[in-house]
């Protein structure tokens, strides 16, 4: 209805008053203006401000004060070894968490989908972790792995599998925070993939059964290709989230031990809110934004190639 009114209005204006053709603030523009203003306030203005901050030294006392610093923060960013190391850890962390979540999520979705009864109950239980705030998952993880009273620490110690402090050594701490993230977000992948599985055309599956295809053949040649689009969407959603992973590490290791879990968001937080070097933090934040955009474009291109996005 709104579209009809809009079209009619525009057409009428063109016919009656060609001289006013250049007025672009049309009815549609007026309707969109509030949303555009809100968008500008929430996204565009802060973005421009952060770009300006990244080109400045930011004074704090008595009000934020920007002093032009040119490309100082950016040149520091590209020569800062600790930020470079944080990026390497972020990439390893990203590949591990998202990879494990995709494999486990698809596996769990296939299992739940194959259930004949109790599907809703199992699904509810499977989804529970993702309803917890990441900060709570971090605190819970810290509690469970604490060497004094943590259940997991006790089980590992009593079984002789691991006697050290889980969050106290570099490898085990990295594995622990990775697994905490996998525990929380695998259900999201399972949920999205399950939605894809539910929409598969039953006749195609039945026909493959009649033709004698085994379960693995059906999975490999029919199910996975048909849900590939959904899987890529799940991958996109998780990737965008994983790249700014913060809460769990902040609440467990805070980047330690020996910087083993200091990924870029932790380094960014430290620069902004511990050192209050907001100009440099802005440069780090913008580099994270650039990587996020690159990743999103990569996934979108894949979706377009498959004809799943316009």
């Amino acid at each position: 209805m709104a579209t009809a009114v809009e079209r009619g209005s525009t057409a009428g204006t063109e016919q009656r008053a060609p001289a006013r053709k250049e007025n672009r603030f049309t009815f549609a523009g007026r309707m969109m203006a509030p949303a555009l203003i809100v968008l500008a306030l929430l996204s565009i203005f802060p973005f421009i401000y952060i770009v300006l901050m990244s080109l400045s030294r930011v004074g704090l006392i008595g009000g934020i004060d920007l002093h032009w610093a040119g490309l100082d923060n950016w040149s520091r960013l590209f020569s800062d070894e600790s930020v470079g190391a944080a990026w390497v850890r972020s990439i390893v962390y990203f590949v591990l968490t998202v990879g494990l979540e995709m494999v486990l999520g698809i596996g769990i979705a296939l299992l739940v989908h194959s259930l004949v009864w109790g599907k809703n109950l199992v699904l509810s239980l499977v989804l529970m972790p993702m309803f917890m705030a990441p900060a709570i998952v971090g605190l819970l993880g810290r509690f469970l792995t604490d060497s004094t009273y943590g259940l997991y620490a006790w089980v590992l110690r009593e079984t002789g599998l691991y006697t050290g402090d889980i969050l106290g050594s570099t490898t085990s701490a990295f594995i622990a925070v990775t697994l905490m993230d996998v525990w929380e977000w695998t259900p999201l992948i399972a949920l999205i993939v399950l939605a894809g599985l539910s929409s598969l055309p039953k006749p195609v599956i039945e026909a493959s059964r009649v033709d004698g295809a085994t379960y693995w053949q059906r999975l490999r040649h029919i199910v996975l290709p048909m849900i590939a689009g959904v899987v890529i969407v799940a991958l996109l959603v998780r990737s965008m989230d994983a790249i700014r992973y913060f809460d769990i590490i902040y609440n467990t290791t805070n980047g330690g031990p020996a910087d083993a879990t200091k990924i870029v968001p932790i380094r960014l937080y430290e620069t902004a809110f511990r050192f209050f070097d907001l100009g440099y933090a802005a440069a780090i934040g913008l580099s994270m934004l650039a990587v996020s955009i690159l990743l999103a474009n990569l996934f979108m291109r894949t979706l377009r190639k498959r004809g799943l996005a316009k």
Partner: protein
Amino acid sequence: MAGAGGAALWLGGCGSSNSAKPVAGDEWKQFGGTTLNFISENTAPTSAIAANLKPFTELTGIEIKIVQLELAALVQKVALDFASGVGSYQIVYADPYQVLAPYHEALVDLNEMMQDPELPKLDDVGDFIPTQLDAAGRFVDKDKLYALPYDAPTMIWQYRKDLFEKHGDRIKQDLGFDPTPSDSSTWEQFYKTSKWFKDNAKDDVSYGHGHQAKQHDSLMNDFSNVLWAYGGDYFEDGDTVGRLGSSDPGEPILDSDEAIEAADFYRRLVSIAHPGSLGWDWDGLGAAFSAGQMAMAVNWHEFAAGNEESKVKGKVGYARLPRGPKRSANMYGGTGLGINATASERDQKAAYLFLNWATSKKTQLANLESDVGGGTPTRDSVYKLPEVEKAKEPPSKMPNILTADAVFEAWKPENIGLRPKIAAWNECDTAIFTQLSKMLAGQQGAEQCMSNTKDGFMQAIDNAAALRSA
């Protein structure tokens, strides 16, 4: 009138020479109806005050809203509040290193308030323990006072008296010295005693000692005790940079032979400690010690309150830290209360009433007696009160006072450990605890660790200077 009477009664109880006179008029009531926000770390005295604000509200008519946070979150909120210029938190828990040093310009010089005839007189300022008044209240300029000492956590030696009594003779026989903490105890003896417990007393305790060696502020605190004991320091003029602070501390001396020796000894010490040490900050260490997992720990003295509510109740002894080749050094972690200079003048004056009250002798005594607090008084006279003297022996209603003899030893100028009070401290702190964590993880040796730490300090000081010039 009732209010004035109440005020007179309250201050009369404080008993210092400056406040012996009854307060005239209603100077305590002049800001009645004001609401102030007090932002504090979640420490014992603030918990005690939060649980019993009624006396202050009755005295002044001022409402206090308290926000208690972890220190890192507090620093963040305070810095952003200073930046906003709004002064949302009028009363600030001004950590000397993370708030006072970088943001002293945003705090009120309390001398102006103390000289204001319209404001009630402060209890005797000379009653504050002198090193604490400088360390927690001043920055560079001795004529300015930005905060009043509010709490005084200090790192001391906490040990299981029962285990030392049980095994003391055998340890003496095996190791050739009396392990009981004394003035002559050394860090080397601490190491040997810890190893002895680990190897020979498994039935009583799993480990000899533990550390707060997480990659965190706690690791810097823990290591600094050893650094100073071995004759190392952060800067050439370490005493002044620690006590009064400096805006130009000079070149760090963390790559000195003494500092490297200290780092190497610390690495050895952690290697025989409870394996949980690498993941603990002070809370984790305190929980493990009070759970009976080790015979000794070096921790903040306010953890005595937790010890006396745990399975080690009545079994813990407290002493000044061991000596190194140079001295005994005990990290001081006290903080003062300051007033936000970006708040309105009326709020600043109302906040001063709260500072006056919260740091008074009577309030510090009430905090000590509080069920939810514990308190770590900063006034000398509080420790001399008969009821406080009596509480030095267990069972005590004031568990933190069980540590009084140890902390008074620790606070002597020759024993106190004061980290650098410089604007770049947050970044320097991160540099040292990160490098130490790498050393403890076996990624680098002591020499490399201290050399990298020095580089990190220099970079941090340069960064802070650039920011301050902005």
